[in-house]
């Protein structure tokens, strides 16, 4: 693998969940949870994936880890196409690609001890450890800041933050290269969120990890990510470096999201203009044609309802799918030929 080849590359990935009706399960439609998204993740970086509930973030995570089968498109991991690889062939690759789950209350089996849970990766993958599984598990517990003596305890004896640490210890067991974190902190108290986010960052530096962090909390994503992708209704609408995205967002949807982040200082809050989106997210069963955001966009014109804007690179490393981007460099702004 060459230096600038991405660790993970997703190309035009789609996932449509069929909607069936009647006795014979006739397919009457499809929920387009993920509808053609592409992104690359490079070694050592953290890609944040943000968007509203139901925009397909979690589905994307599950597609990449092959917990779900993509309908179309390609997933390439370390140069290997794993899109439709059989589970048996995929098993050894799973060591290098692990997942952190959203809900620490449901991601740990209540009937197993912490030792069994954190030791499961070794048993499932048949990995030999130098001083036995118990020692390896205790090292992992120490690594995530838990008492190694808690080996024999059960998950219900821990708090939410501690449980998430147990989940992280399990994820780290096989020393993966890529970790998909699906809302790793959204089920936790704000005070615990910081602990877990900082733990993830420390582990990244220590173990040279690559993250894809799925979250709906923009401040968490800002804190942890190097690059951020914004999703809306199964599509990526904007992807850029963290600084660029937060300082000069181009897509109206990103603008709206950022303006919804609470500002702690009341004085600067007054100066800021808030964008209030009206209406609900349209149903992914029947998404709006062309630009999917046009039903809620204040800049929408006729072209937005007819021509789907491509995800174009308008500045270096900053790609946007919009006909009327904001904060765009002058030369890049296209004047739509026909409007009306």
């Amino acid at each position: 693998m060459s230096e600038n080849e991405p660790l993970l590359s997703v190309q035009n990935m789609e996932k449509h969940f069929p909607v069936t009706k009647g006795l014979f399960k006739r397919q009457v439609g499809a929920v387009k949870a993920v509808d053609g998204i592409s992104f690359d993740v490079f070694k050592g970086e953290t890609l944040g994936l943000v968007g509203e509930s139901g925009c397909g973030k979690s589905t994307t995570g599950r597609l990449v880890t092959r917990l779900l089968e993509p309908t179309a498109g390609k997933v390439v991991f370390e140069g290997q196409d794993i899109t439709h690889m059989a589970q048996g062939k995929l098993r050894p690759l799973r060591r290098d690609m692990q997942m952190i789950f959203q809900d620490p209350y449901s991601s740990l089996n209540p009937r197993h001890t912490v030792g069994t849970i954190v030791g499961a990766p070794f048993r499932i993958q048949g990995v030999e450890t130098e001083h036995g599984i118990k020692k390896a598990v205790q090292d992992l517990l120490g690594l995530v800041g838990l008492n190694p003596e808690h080996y024999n305890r059960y998950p219900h004896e821990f708090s939410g933050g501690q449980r998430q640490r147990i989940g992280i210890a399990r994820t780290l067991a096989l020393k993966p290269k890529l970790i998909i974190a699906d809302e790793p902190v959204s089920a936790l108290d704000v005070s615990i969120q910081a602990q877990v986010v900082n733990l993830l960052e420390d582990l990244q530096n220590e173990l040279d990890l690559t993250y894809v962090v799925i979250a709906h909390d923009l401040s968490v994503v800002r804190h942890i990510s190097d690059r951020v992708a914004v999703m809306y209704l199964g599509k990526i609408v904007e992807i850029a470096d963290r600084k660029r995205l937060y300082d000069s967002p181009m897509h109206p949807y990103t603008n709206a999201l950022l303006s919804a982040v609470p500002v702690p200082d009341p004085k600067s809050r007054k100066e800021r203009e808030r964008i209030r989106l009206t209406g609900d997210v349209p149903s992914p069963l029947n998404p709006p044609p062309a630009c999917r955001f046009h039903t809620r966009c204040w800049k929408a014109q006729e072209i937005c309802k007819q021509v789907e804007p491509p995800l174009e690179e308008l500045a270096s490393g900053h790609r946007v799918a919009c006909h009327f981007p904001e904060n765009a460099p002058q030369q890049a702004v296209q004047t739509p030929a026909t409007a009306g």
Partner: protein
Amino acid sequence: MTAPLDVPGSAIEAGPETVLEGAETSVIRGRSLGQIAWMRLRRDRIAMIGGIVILLLILVAIFAPLLVSWFGHPPAEWHREKLDPSIGAPLGTFGGISSDFLFGVEPDSGRDLFSRVLYGARISLLIAFFATLLCVVLGTVLGMIAGFFGGWVDTIISRLMDIFLAFPLLVFALALAGVIPDKAFGMSGDTLRISLLVFIIGFFNWPYIGRIIRGQTLSLREREFVDASRSLGARNHTILFKEILPNLLAPILVYSTLLIPSNILFEAALSFLGVGVRPPTPTWGGMLSDAVHNYQVAPNFMIFPGLAIFITVLAFNLLGDGLRDAFDPKAR
């Protein structure tokens, strides 16, 4: 009945820093959900009484020959001298109860009722336990497969359950017991009859527990620990038996405890109708059936086997209810 637990040595520790400092050499043992349920059950006095009664019943059934040799007469031994020769009714008060015949004697034959009730417990418990075991094994395996794999597998197994539930079981049992000869499948006599009853009761009652297990599996397989296991590369059978099955042990235990009494009743009903174990082997249902003709002259003949069934069923139900509360205090 189930008060909140005051767990000594609170489970939830402070932040990670303090935890690391306080890392001592003492071995910390966690308390599993099963142990917690056992603690709750021990506080549930009624369930514990049920459990103790069941234990006593099992001991009585196992040591029936010993107890009978101490306090009674062999169950097949006739005592004509204890009967009124003209009408065949027992002599003495209330069916001939005496220190020699603790429950009195049977009309017409003079057999010792005490020993017959004790020996009847063997048959009842034996059939109920094995029939329940068959139900639970079939129901758990098929229910888990249906719930876990879904799709057409689920459709087939679920429809199979519907068919079994719609089956006219009692009529079938009556017919089958009549058709089966005295020797079949390399077995004969009581062994054949007992196996037949175990098969009929067990094979046709599994859908009840099967449905419960299927429903539980459906909800368990959506839990994230199943995804976690799969993302580690676990195979389906590992997920089924290592991740899902341990979570099903509580409902399996509860429903088998509640299934045993209904199977005891079913066995009694079949014996009452004469398709159970053949006389002279004593069964509670068979004794009740015989007692119907004599209840005026010998009420003890009806009361003692009836009481035995009643106490057994009640004890199992009390224990089952207690178990359910202990495992899931919220579902009340």
